[in-house]
């Protein structure tokens, strides 16, 4: 798989009159997993939407391989860049197979509605996400974790070198969160896809991402290797939260221990 260059320069993003992101430059490392973290309303989902051309920038541009996103026909773009929005909903009764099949839409035409390539991509996506046995089940009858796997399978079947995921672990219990993140890791390592995801959990971001972008108030506060970005100082700035950062005993990546106003047995210097 080729290594796509996704980047943005001088980006201003706004909803009506409210500017959310201003003069932002970002470059997504190709072939790696990038996590965007930050407090609520810091503009991280807005940035992801702009990278996926779901939101048109007011100023600046997002570029894929040197071409502005808005100058690439949307179907062509859909063969190179996939986006899984937050909390998508399927029509009642839609089967997993039907859902995953729709991921092939950008590859289909009026006369070629179901090619051999479509069929192998769908079977491959079902196998890669471990839901081949669920193919005939209705999406709305699945558990939260299975349902998220089905949606990721749809995005996998789309077969894009770049995959953007908006909070893929939201509404999942801890076991399913880890399960989905492991799956994303496999997609990156086995198929070389460039992945950008918005994550809430800093510790998971540290474990699973190669590159972390920390945002606050529509700006990038720090970016780079998780070990360099996730420090007590940066967390204090980005989240207005005192914390201690130690080493994750399982993965060796940074582990953030938050400190609130209560339940802190050790006295901290003020």
């Amino acid at each position, binding site marked *: 798989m080729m290594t796509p260059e996704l980047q943005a320069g001088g980006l201003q993003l706004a909803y*009506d009159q409210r500017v959310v992101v201003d003069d932002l430059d970002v470059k997504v490392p190709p072939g790696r997993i990038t996590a965007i973290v930050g407090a609520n309303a810091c503009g991280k989902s807005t940035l992801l939407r702009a990278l996926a051309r*779901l939101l048109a920038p007011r100023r600046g541009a997002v570029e894929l391989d040197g071409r502005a996103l808005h100058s690439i026909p949307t179907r062509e773009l*859909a063969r190179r860049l996939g986006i899984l929005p937050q909390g998508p909903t399927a029509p009642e*009764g839609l089967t997993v197979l039907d859902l995953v099949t729709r991921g092939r839409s950008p590859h289909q035409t009026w*006369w*070629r509605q179901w090619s051999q390539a479509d*069929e192998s991509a769908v079977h491959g996506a079902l196998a890669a996400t471990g839901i081949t046995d669920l*193919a005939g089940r209705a999406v709305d009858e699945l558990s939260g974790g299975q349902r998220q796997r089905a949606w990721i399978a749809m995005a996998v079947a789309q077969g894009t070198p770049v995959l953007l995921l908006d909070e893929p672990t939201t509404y999942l219990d801890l076991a399913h969160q880890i399960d989905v993140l492991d799956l994303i890791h496999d997609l990156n390592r086995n198929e070389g896809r460039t992945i950008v995801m918005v994550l809430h959990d800093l510790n998971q971001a540290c474990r699973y991402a190669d590159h972390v972008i920390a945002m606050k108030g529509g700006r990038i506060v720090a970016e780079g290797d998780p070990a360099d970005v996730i420090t007590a100082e940066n967390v204090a700035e980005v989240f207005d939260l005192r914390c201690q950062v130690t080493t994750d005993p399982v993965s060796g990546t940074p582990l953030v221990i938050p400190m609130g106003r209560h339940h802190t047995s050790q006295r901290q210097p003020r």
Partner: protein
Amino acid sequence: MAAKTLTPKPGAHFRIALPPLSGRLRPRLITVCAALAAATFLVVAWAVSMGDFPITFTEALRAVVGVGDPGTLLIVQELRLPRAVVGLLVGFAFGLSGAIFQTMTRNALASPDMIGFTQGAGTAVVAGIVFGWTSTLSTQALGLLGTFVMAALVYVLAWRRGTTGYRIILVGIGLQWMATSATDYLVARGMQFQAHAALGWLTGNLNGRDWSQALPLALTMAVLVPAALALGRLTRTLQLGDDVAVGLGTRVQVVRLALLVTGVGLVAFGTAAGGPIAFVALAAPQIAQRLAGTAWPPPLAAGLTGALFVTGSDLAAARLFPMELPVGIVTGVLGAPILLWLLIRANRAGSGG
């Protein structure tokens, strides 16, 4: 001769490949469509052959193609056939239009008779009757005008950085009540004979339809039905929500506008020809969806269900009761129990309907 491969799939469909052509076949959907088409044909044939002046089935079919004695030809070609054809076309147009709107908005309540389009036609026609415009403008033209004005209002008022299905429904319901109130006011202030004529049209009536109603509808549908069926492929991504659809390369606003224009055209010309026949656009797609076992209203099956629904109801309205009833009364009475039965059965089966 290209090789044909059929692979059975867990989702109850077959892959068909005749390179460079390829597609998927759903046996159950095809069976349902064939059965609906056959049933509609039988109902139309029955409607053409039965009546105060009985004609045999064969005689009727021969008269359709222009063979027979002058009396039979007159009755079949000028009286019974146009009525049956208008019923068939109006039903198909309403069913297909309902499927388009329900798919576009991802909501079963979003049929054109729930979001004000048919009520707009009603207000325009009743205003024409009460103010005496019908001498210059035909009822058909007024019905068309009313639907188009209403659809444009819904679209413009629902626009806010693009449209969403939800806003179209809410704005449509608001405008629907305004149109209904305006119609009620016009009926109340009209003369008694005007009010009677207005109510007759508002019920939806196929009595006395001739080719002048059938022809404009047939010509419009010759364009809009293929367009609607072609757009059906693009709605497969739209059903997953706007963001997912954009991500899959669908130009959401363009497709939604094309769907809106097609759906409005179908319901406008259908209403102009047959009046606002109740419940068809809402129920036919939902009945078709349950018959075909799909998760969305299948467009072709919805049109065929609508056609069978209206022709069957008109036959019942004309023959089952001591006095002839307008078809719009029967569609509600027949359609609601069928839909309720399908819904209840689906819930018991645990598939959620």
